[in-house]
């Protein structure tokens, strides 16, 4: 379990952004898409930095890669199976 305090600074900006965007949706504001690419690049740089500066994590990278592949493959497989099953139920009904 993570520190519950973490939640506060993850959920507050997300919900705050949604509320503010909703309130201001009728104004002609500049889209934030360009700014968001800059922030994403900074964010991923600092994520990479955290990985690179952690020798223990670097040595477990091959194992994490395999785990990532297994999670991705199973998530894809079951997503397709569920959608296909759902469609069958709908078309039969």
């Amino acid at each position, binding site marked *: *379990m*993570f520190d519950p305090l*973490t*939640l506060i*600074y*993850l*959920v507050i*900006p*997300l919900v*705050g*952004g*949604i509320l*503010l*965007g*909703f309130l*201001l949706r009728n104004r002609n*504001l500049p*889209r*934030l898409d360009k700014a968001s*690419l800059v*922030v*994403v*690049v*900074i*964010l*991923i*740089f*600092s*994520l*990479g*930095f*955290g*990985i*690179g*500066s*952690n020798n223990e*994590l*670097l040595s*477990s*990278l091959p194992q*994490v890669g395999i*785990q*990532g592949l*297994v*999670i991705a*493959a*199973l*998530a*894809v*497989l*079951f*997503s*397709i*199976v*569920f*959608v*296909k*099953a*759902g*469609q069958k139920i709908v078309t039969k009904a």
Partner: protein
Amino acid sequence: MIKYILAALILGGVAGYLNNNLLTVVPNSMIAEQLFTVALIAILFVFGFSFAQDRNAMEKIRKTGFRIVAFPLLVALGSLVGGLFAGLLLQISVGGAMAVSSGFGWYTLSGPMMGQLLGPKWGTLGFTANFFRELLTITTIPLMVKLYRYAPVASGGGTTMDTTLGVIVRYCGKDVLIIAFSNGLILSIIAPFATVAFASLA
């Protein structure tokens, strides 16, 4: 966009490695923790803001109606079941694996969020697993579409509103556009909340 992100990840990794093992210019925690946290807070705000501000997106969902909402919900359910089995198979925390699969392919969100919630190892896994999901989708679209027409949309998860939308429409046909877009949008809205919810079970 993907080339900027991969370049940022690799440059960050090299910079972090050099800073840690050769010459320490700044304390590791300053970039890996403080800058990281500030950027994550900023990006969550920007994502939330852009979603709510985009009236066309909301309108598209409303027009397509309830039937199309069922599609992303089934994809979400399938992803979570996939994460559950992956967790059991790999003998890692099942809640953690499900939180990772809750990224629905959105690696720029899942990586940093998982890192913030459960630590750098989970952050790396969140990035890798969701990156592979996008990669798997793009590389196997021609094959998937032969087996089942909507398989690429289910496979792409949250990425079908932007990064994989173009390829999906090319292979699945123009009439898949609306379902692919709304699928990606709804999953992207669910992703951060589902990630937090399942990480709390880890």
